């Protein structure tokens, strides 16, 4: 109890609460601007965390994460263009209510209420479930950790929207990058080409900024050049929802939050999937089915509670097992590791204070998000109109300054530019940037535990199948890899029939 109270007290220290407020506010702005993604926002502002001491940098990133997921709903409602993929389902009823029925304030108020509700619900679930899961994971040894890493890597097949092979190739590229530098087991130097810079491995932060921010900015130039940009000029009145509206959506909020939290815990899924499932379920259970698609408030509440509850859910595998659930949590995992915090079961044993600070950070971040959402909606609505011709040079500048300030190294800037250019072409060829980052993050874990397990068994590979947990995880990995192929074959057959 003492640790819990001390952690809560830490959150309210000036620098920590400033980090959280700043992160949440910036996150909402990033999410609200179409073309900027959650991953890009976290990657872009990641270097700033090194300027904050202690947990405040991590709290800032948490704020950006939850804020950006919510912010996507603002442009979805006002422009009919989702700021993030997780808000695509919100356009179905959000835009008709805001524009056709001329009630933008009501639509934004419902989306804010639902997002806050979903976020807090999932944060509470995270607090209740993760210690139990971490206690179970304490039994893990090298074979189980290897199988866990493979399971984490296997989710890349579901992260690649285009070709599954390209998704896996991207992941393998990440795993290869992770082998560069001094081998942790034997101390041998691998693939450094006699450069001192590469001795410690490829610097994670510049690669992250290059892949997620620099390359995305290039894609934005290509996609939007010469096309007119949508703008809005709506009068936003009362944003706080009425008691009648709240009563109407309450059941939907509970149901969608459960769906979102559960989906968030499954690696490889994310806010986009949960929001559509939550929307579909809301429609099935609603007494007013005919309103859906024409501005139903339940149709806004369901996807928003669904996608924001993914945030807490995705933290469960990340904090307890050290495997990321999606691209955003992969970056957050990397951020924690760079800051010297290694997520996994041992974190709960050795650094429980940090765990509680993350829990409370999520909770309070969601409350702040609600305060921002209810009070500054007019400002956010204006941000949606910022032209790309201003935004793009700004993003490029931040990538340059951010990658330099991480280590005060010009080489890092050049590495970032190289990663960004490679990322641009890889994006064009439908490779997933998240898959590469997951490969880099889990590469060391996979290799050291693989070799460590073989040392335990005197070189016998049977060690990986003799442990029931390891076997179960390897089977789950296989299912995770194969299921998209089976799914696409089944849908093809269905279409033929």
């Amino acid at each position, binding site marked *: 109890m003492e640790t819990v109270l001390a952690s809560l007290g830490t959150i309210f220290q000036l620098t920590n609460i400033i980090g959280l407020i700043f992160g949440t506010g910036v996150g909402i702005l990033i999410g609200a601007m179409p073309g900027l993604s959650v991953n890009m926002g976290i990657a872009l502002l990641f270097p700033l965390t090194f300027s904050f001491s202690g947990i405040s940098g991590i709290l800032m990133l948490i704020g950006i994460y939850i804020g950006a997921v919510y912010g996507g709903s603002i442009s979805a409602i006002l422009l009919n263009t989702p700021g993030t993929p997780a808000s695509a389902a919100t356009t179905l009823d959000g835009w008709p209510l805001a524009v056709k029925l001329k009630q933008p304030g009501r639509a934004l108020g419902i989306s804010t209420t639902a997002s806050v509700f979903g976020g807090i619900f999932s944060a509470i679930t995270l607090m209740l479930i993760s210690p139990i899961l971490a206690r179970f994971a304490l039994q893990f040894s090298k074979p189980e950790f290897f199988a866990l890493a493979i399971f984490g890597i296997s989710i890349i097949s579901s992260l690649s929207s285009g070709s599954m092979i390209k998704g896996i190739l991207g992941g393998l*590229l990440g795993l290869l990058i992770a082998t560069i530098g001094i081998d942790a087991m034997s101390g041998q130097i691998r693939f450094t080409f006699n450069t001192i810079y590469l001795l410690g491995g490829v610097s994670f932060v510049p690669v992250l900024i290059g892949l997620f921010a620099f390359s995305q900015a290039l894609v934005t130039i290509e996609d939007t050049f010469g096309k007119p940009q949508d703008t809005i000029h709506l009068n936003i009145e009362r944003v706080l929802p009425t008691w009648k509206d709240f009563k109407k959506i309450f059941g939907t909020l509970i149901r969608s939050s459960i769906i979102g939290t559960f989906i968030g815990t499954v690696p490889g899924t994310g806010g986009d999937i949960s929001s559509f499932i939550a929307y579909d379920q809301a429609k099935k259970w609603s007494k007013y089915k005919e309103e859906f698609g024409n501005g139903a408030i339940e149709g806004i509440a369901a996807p928003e509670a669904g996608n924001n509850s993914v945030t807490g859910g995705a933290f469960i595998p990340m904090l307890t097992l050290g495997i990321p659930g999606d691209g955003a949590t992969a970056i957050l995992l990397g951020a924690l590791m760079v800051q010297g915090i290694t997520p996994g079961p041992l974190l709960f044993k050795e650094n429980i204070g940090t765990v509680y600070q993350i829990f409370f950070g999520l909770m309070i971040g969601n409350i702040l998000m609600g305060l921002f959402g209810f009070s500054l909606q007019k400002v956010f609505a204006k941000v949606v109109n910022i032209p790309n011709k201003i935004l793009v040079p700004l993003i490029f500048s931040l990538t340059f300054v951010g990658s330099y300030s991480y280590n005060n190294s*010009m080489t890092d800037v050049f590495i970032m530019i190289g990663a960004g250019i490679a990322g*641009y072409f890889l994006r064009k060829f439908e490779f997933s940037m998240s898959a590469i980052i997951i490969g880099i993050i889990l590469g060391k874990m996979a290799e050291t535990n693989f070799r460590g397990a073989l040392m335990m068994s005197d070189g016998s590979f049977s060690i990986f199948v003799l442990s029931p947990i390891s076997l179960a995880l390897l089977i789950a990995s296989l299912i995770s890899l194969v299921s998209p192929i089976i799914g696409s074959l089944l849908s093809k057959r269905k279409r033929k029939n």
Partner: protein
Amino acid sequence: MKTMKAWNFFVSAIFILLGVAVIALSREFPIEMGKGDPGSGFWPTVLGIIIIVLGLLLAMISCISKSDKLLIDLRMSSSGAKRVYWMLGLTVLFGVMMYVGGLLAALFVFVYLSMGVMDVKSKRERLLFSLVLVASVYLIFQVILKSPLPPPIFMR
């Protein structure tokens, strides 16, 4: 190369070459099977083999598949793509300028020129935005966060 299908062959060739290179480079490191630790060369060799297999698989699937996705127009010479190449050129210029003239000067020139690439016609608008941005970067990073920015070559 105009379609995704054509580019897929190029991509698979690159990955096969990468796999071969990794295997060749890994030969410098020991691989000892059946004696506990398989050695530091084992893991990268396995990765190299899987990359080659998947590269071949990608080429094969691209060859036999009739999916519409493979016919996506992927020409690298659209007007948007040309702007990207301009921006890449500016980035190279930025790298050189940063090395010689420091980050702030390089950033000013980069932002001014990149706004031109983004079709901002007004020179006044470009100048004003570049100045405000560079001043903000200096204030936030150098003054508030005390994070040093690369100085010009003569001040190093």
